[in-house]
């Protein structure tokens, strides 16, 4: 589903990713762990096409397509979704308008009929309930004045609406209390499907108790230095990251 090969990427001429390779098969959940500055979030941004993040070498394919050749909006319409670590506030654009525009853009791109206004509203309301957000949030500005947890749940709602092929969750657990974490995990687990893959970026093992990964990878200095199953996360929790950093050095 997602094939990353020898990816190098820079931010402001500083190389952050230094030859990252990762194969994510259909329906798999991969966790990427690492200390701050190891390149976890950069990976998410490069995949989503954030301006200022430049890939200098390597390739990324999604479903056999050259992902990096596509504009950010085309990547999204083709099925990539990045849940932002820091969702952006867009005052003046209501959540509902925003979600509708996103769904319409995707439907038009795929030559499908977008849902009519009342169908859409019904769906959006149901999703609010599913992520435990008051329906009044649909009428509010996108993320405007939302708490940290509300922003993350809003990201989750967008993901549920857009039904991506590949979902990248960038530290979606940060700033969440245990109840909110459960809501987010339920949302993700409910979306798990044979034709949908997840890359879960996190600093802490805690999230992985809720979203059980098939594979765990450790990122150090812009490369994956160790891969394993979920037991690797527990080992990290016990020994800390220093152990692997030392090993790599």
């Amino acid at each position, binding site marked *: 589903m997602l094939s990353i090969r020898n990816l190098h990427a820079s931010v402001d001429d500083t190389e952050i990713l230094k030859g990252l390779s990762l194969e994510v098969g259909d329906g798999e959940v991969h966790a990427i762990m690492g200390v701050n500055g190891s390149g976890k979030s950069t990976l998410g941004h490069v995949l989503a096409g954030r301006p200022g993040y430049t890939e200098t070498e390597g390739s990324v394919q999604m479903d056999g397509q050259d992902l990096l050749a596509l504009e950010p909006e085309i990547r*999204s*319409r083709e099925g990539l979704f990045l849940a932002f670590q820091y969702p952006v506030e867009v*005052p003046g654009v209501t959540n509902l308008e925003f979600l509708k525009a996103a769904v319409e853009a995707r439907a038009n791109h795929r030559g499908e009929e977008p849902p009519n206004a009342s169908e859409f509203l019904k769906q959006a309301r149901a999703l609010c309930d599913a992520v435990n957000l008051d329906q009044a949030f649909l009428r509010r500005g996108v993320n405007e004045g939302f708490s940290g947890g509300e922003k993350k749940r809003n990201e989750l709602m967008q993901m549920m609406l857009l039904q991506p092929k590949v979902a990248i969750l960038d530290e979606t657990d940060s700033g969440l209390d245990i109840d909110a974490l459960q809501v987010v995990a339920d949302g993700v687990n409910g979306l798990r499907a044979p034709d949908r893959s997840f890359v879960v970026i996190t600093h802490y093992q805690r999230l992985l108790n809720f979203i059980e990964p098939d594979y765990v990878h450790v990122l150090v200095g812009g490369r994956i230095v160790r891969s394993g199953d979920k037991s690797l996360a527990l080992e990290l929790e016990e020994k800390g990251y220093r152990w692997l950093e030392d090993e790599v050095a």
Partner: protein
Amino acid sequence: MDFEQLAVAPVESPAWLRDFQTASRSALVGVPWPDRKTEAWQNTSLRALTADSFDTSSGVDGSGDPNEYLIEDLNSTDLVFVDGTYLQDLSDPVPSGVSLVHLSDANEAEAGMIRSRIGTVVPPTHHFAQLNGSRLDDGILLRFRGAVSQPVRIVWQSTGTRSLNHRLLVLMEEGSQATLIEHFCGAGEAFTNSVSELDLANNSHLYHCRLHLEKETGIHIGGAHARLGSHASFGGFHLGTGGPLKRVDVTIDHAGAGATSLLSGAYLLRASQRIDYHVCAEHSAPQCDSQSTFRGIIADKARAVFNGRIHIHRGARKTQATLDNKNLLTSDSAQVNTKPELEIYNDDVSCAHGATVSQLSGESLHYLRSRGLGTEAAFRLLNFAFINELLDRAPEPALAAFLRTKLQSWFDRGGS
């Protein structure tokens, strides 16, 4: 040109009005015509005005087009003026609690009241307002008593090339409440000089909305000036689209203790249009709050001027005043001159003042694109949002919906 020469009183006015015309004219004696050295006009040229602009005789069409000012679902009392003439057929009877007096028809008591208030709310240094007074032949007084729930809308439509001299005096009696909309529209090429004075007695509340939606051919110089008594509260909303020359002065004088005002405004310019808003919060009484927020989107080669002033007088302790102006330039040739002014003569106050000129946030743009919106759609949505935020403050949902449609059509016509 010369203010004194232009200050020609109409023939046959009643004595009280002649007295006002003369007083207005005397304030213009020796006042030089504004040029770039005149501080209040240093960024706005009056070159679009010619001697013909002041012709009050020609170009009256006289038949208004109600479709042009239709606001769906707005259940308002409409008073319709076309080329300066009140059209009773297109207008509604005023509801109870409101009295409407045409200046030319005022009886002795009404005339006395008008004469004692007219010209006292607008600052005397506003020379175009004095010019308006010197040439005044008619206008209206609106008095509000008690709570008037239905909004009153004055439609000022212009169809021809006749120079127009609108005057409105609003008296909010103690404890009264009202919503007033001034809706300027029309495809005329006239020069309009309009002065609105809003006098709020103690504990009264007025929401005043002034829409400058004339076609881009019209020239407009005008102002809306409010004076607030004790614990009066004032809400204001301005929307302006550009033209060859448009200048709007807004002053709010917090004259009574505990008065509050919340003012918002937006301007939208494209092609080589101009607009100039001069906004001033005067604080002469203690414990008053004022908040003013204006935003502009300037496209193509258009140019906006915004001057925002807070003036806190010696006695105005415990004032809280903020004034904020944000501008979005959507082309490299678009321009804005925004100038904050603070003049404070009391230490015990809290003031904030901000003016920014920017382009759209790359972060917001990327966020929208990451959800599948194309660059153009994302730009439009964000530009729209920049102004749309302010519309939430409109008191009538139907009015907010109308303004959103106007905003949308502005963008649809390639506003940015």
